[in-house]
């Protein structure tokens, strides 16, 4: 069996006495690998399989017709719009923040880094709530906005704001450790050769960080398209108007339109899979140029 031959400890030499020193017995290895594979199958693979199986339960035709429902279609459009606005915004912010933090020494740097990470530790629902409190008719801003006919809550701007908030740290978080590791000598060399600040950034810094940047943007985009809790609170769930794809999944599911719900879910799961594949490829090929910290 192929598995048999290759089921070995990483870089352990082949002789038997040695194996006793730095790895487990064969039986122990099989049990440990078996347990973890079972866990992965149960908690990671099974949900994914369910999504696609349920989506295609009644065949491709119904899957496609579920997606071509006008409300679903507008949910897809809105999701793309929201991600299309919030990802570039956080991209610019991420580059600015990592430039300031990684290339300079200043007071309060550690505190600033903590503040940037803050949205990660806030519950999605709370993230949505803070914008409700800020813009609702009971708030300070609410009456003014209302009198000027500006609608933020239960409209696209509110959804974008909540999405920007929850995806706020992604790009910066990938870039800061990467740029810190690279130091400032490349930039100093470019400046000493007469390059301007922008030229230095464009020709020296950006090529150095491009894979890490892509990686960060990828994660940022996945979260932006998939965010549920925060968006759910600010969207108002107006069908065909303020429903993003995850919200559409919820509505369809609660209406017992399971196939339709899973059809939209399958699209989102596909996005997740594509993200994972590109992410793994990037890690495989450019691991040195992607920040070592892989957690979020």
């Amino acid at each position, binding site marked *: 069996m192929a598995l048999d031959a290759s089921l070995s400890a990483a870089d352990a030499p082949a002789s038997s006495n040695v194996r*006793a020193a730095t790895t487990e017995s064969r039986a122990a290895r099989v049990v440990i690998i078996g347990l973890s594979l079972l866990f992965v199958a149960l908690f990671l693979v099974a949900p994914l399989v369910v999504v696609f199986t349920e989506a295609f339960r009644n065949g491709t035709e119904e899957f496609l017709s579920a997606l071509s429902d006008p409300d679903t279609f507008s949910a897809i459009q809105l999701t793309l719009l929201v991600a299309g606005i919030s990802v570039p915004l956080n991209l610019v912010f991420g580059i600015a923040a990592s430039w300031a933090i990684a290339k300079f020494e200043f007071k309060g740097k550690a505190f600033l880094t903590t503040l940037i990470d803050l949205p990660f530790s806030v519950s999605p629902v709370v993230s949505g709530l803070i914008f409700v409190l800020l813009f609702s008719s009971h708030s300070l801003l609410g009456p003014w906005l209302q009198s000027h006919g500006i609608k933020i809550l239960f409209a696209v701007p509110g959804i974008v704001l909540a999405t920007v908030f929850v995806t706020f740290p992604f790009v910066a978080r990938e870039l800061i450790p990467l740029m810190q590791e690279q130091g400032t000598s490349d930039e100093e060399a470019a400046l000493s050769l007469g390059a301007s600040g922008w030229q230095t950034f464009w020709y020296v810094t950006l090529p150095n960080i491009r894979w890490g940047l892509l990686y960060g943007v990828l994660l940022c985009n996945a979260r932006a398209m998939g965010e549920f809790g925060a968006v759910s609170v600010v969207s108002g769930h107006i069908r065909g108007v303020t429903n993003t794809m995850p919200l559409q999944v919820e509505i369809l599911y609660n209406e017992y339109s399971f196939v339709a719900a899973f059809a939209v879910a399958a699209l989102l799961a596909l996005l997740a899979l594509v993200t994972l594949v590109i992410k793994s490829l990037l890690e495989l090929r450019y691991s040195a140029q992607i920040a070592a910290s892989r957690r979020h």
Partner: protein
Amino acid sequence: MDVRVKDIRKEFSHLPALENLSLNIRSGELIALLGPSGSGKTTLLRLIAGLESPTRGTIYFGEDDASSKTVQERNIGFVFQHYALFRHMTVLDNVAFGLTIRPAARRPAKAEIRRRALDLLDLVQLSGLEKRYPAQLSGGQRQRVALARAMAVEPNVLLLDEPFGALDAQVRKELRRWLREIHDRTGHTTVFVTHDQDEALELADRVVVMSKGRIEQVGTPDEIYDEPNSPFVYGFIGQSNCLPIRVEAGQIWLEDRLIGLSAPGEADGPAKLFFRPHDIELVDGCGGCLAGIVVQSRRVAGTRHVEVELGAARTRVEIELPPQRAASDGNRIAFRPTRFKLFRD
């Protein structure tokens, strides 16, 4: 305890790392395995420890065949190049570890373990630091903790892999002297690996010179330096010069000249002449000597290092002269080795 390595061969994925190598280590001896990287010295050390197992051959600890035992059963002390201290344990717990994990039947009482660990810390001059964590120690201190930890199990043999490799020069020198003292006090049979000849020659009772998976020479530091038995050892230990010469009727010729050295009993034919830069005498005029043009002369501390080009082939050799002896570039100089060795190709 004496350790005998018998006809050991070790292959890594079918590439030989050690070839049919035998070595006897006497009880209580401090022995150095010296060689360039890739010579197999660390592999030999790890084989003795049981961290690798030989492809062929046997290792005896005293009369026991140790090669059938696992590393845990061999009861050896191993000091790793990067110390491999347990970073979540205090210095005291590190030293006591080997005793605390023994099965209850062979485990000393808690108080006894603590006493022995503290004694060892005292021996390695780290008293008072027992509550520290490895991250809070300097390199030299970590090295000493590692040694104390290895000695705590009262090992059959103490094995050290490049024990001073990761330390800076000053600390190295101090620890070298100190390791010799510890060895003289405790009397453990000790094998250490090094690529630094000064360290090996200064510290060891005997030196094992290794190259390409073989033992080139085993001997006391004096024997190794004064009577190298191969061109490799001549070249690897200390400074040496090598001249391509010819032997005819017991006389040594460089190109078309006699150089005033004889090699009685040596067969006719080409050979290589090895001599050390300081094993020469200057001669006036020349009826049988090495004579050449000085191409460079440098003063290094108490001696003058002079590079000389010899013969039509302009072979360069370096000789050492007293500093007051002037030797400017372009001058002609004549000398004769007082001590030399011939090797056939």
